[in-house]
């Protein structure tokens, strides 16, 4: 699996995700600068990491979404290539129009830095084949603007099309406002594009890939992608 991690000014989780990719796939990802116009030849997976690109100025991800590299990312996605945006990367994907909706300020106004439970809604995507549908995983969140919002029509459409991939739930996979701390519409933590090849999610699976951290629940996402590309090859 040839992965490329895009670095914007203010990204700060690029090394976390690069480490997880190396650990699980055995292959070091290529780091790509935001001002570049092209992705490395043969890129299978593009990752937009977490952080605070451009200091969250204007709106989170708004300025990064207009960076030169994003045209290449759009082209990659249009050709069916896989893209993941984590946290700030999710905000960038929404602002770039690659994913529907937008991430707003958390409903309680607080920056949330803690573990959450996510229900994996389906396992038949390249991003979740390492999990079972309905499985609940524990991964951390660290964000101030993770409150997913989309119009009622958009929400209806993405639900109908099975494009909600991860949802905030309790430990048993039940939806509960108490466990949807940022106030996201329909408790959405991760959403897919129309062709199911672009994923944005607020939580950080890349931080739960090693036993020494206390959880390896995030590993399935990377292991699933490796399996997806191994099968495709």
């Amino acid at each position, binding site marked *: 699996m040839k992965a490329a991690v895009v670095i914007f000014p203010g990204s700060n989780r690029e090394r976390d995700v690069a480490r997880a990719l190396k650990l699980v796939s055995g292959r070091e990802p290529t780091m790509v600068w935001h001002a570049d116009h092209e992705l490395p030849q043969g890129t299978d997976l593009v990752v937009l990491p977490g952080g605070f690109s451009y200091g969250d100025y204007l709106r989170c991800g708004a300025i990064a979404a207009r960076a030169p590299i994003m045209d290449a990312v759009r082209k990659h996605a249009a050709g069916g290539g896989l893209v993941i945006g984590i946290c700030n990367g999710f905000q960038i994907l929404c*602002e770039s129009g690659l994913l529907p909706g937008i991430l707003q*300020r958390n409903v309680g106004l607080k920056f949330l830095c803690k573990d959450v439970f996510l229900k994996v809604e389906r396992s038949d995507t390249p991003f979740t084949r390492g999990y079972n549908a309905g499985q609940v995983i524990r991964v951390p969140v660290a964000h101030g603007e993770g409150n997913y919002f989309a119009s009622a029509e958009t929400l209806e459409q993405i639900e109908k099309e099975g494009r909600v991939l991860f949802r905030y739930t309790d430990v048993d996979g039940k939806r509960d406002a108490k466990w949807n701390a940022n106030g996201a519409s329909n408790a959405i933590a991760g959403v897919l594009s129309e062709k199911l090849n672009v994923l944005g999610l607020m939580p950080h699976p890349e931080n739960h890939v090693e036993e020494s951290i206390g959880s390896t629940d995030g590993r399935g996402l990377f292991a699933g992608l490796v399996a997806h590309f191994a099968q495709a090859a």
Partner: protein
Amino acid sequence: MKARVTVTLKNGVLDPQGKAIEGALTSLNVAGVKSVRQGKVFDIELAGTSPEQAEAVLKDAAEKLLANTIIENYRIEVGAD
């Protein structure tokens, strides 16, 4: 030429910051505040164009960057000194 673009949240879009400000005003005993919605103001200086051209340029700017039209509306005022 001077111009101003005002970006506001659409009706029905949750505004936690506006709510917090509303609460703070109430606790400061500012009387009669029914609700607060927070927005953004951009004061922009344009190089010598006609008001029509300015309007077009600012619309482009608002659509491309200044506003996210999923949740925000924008208003353009040209020649606001």
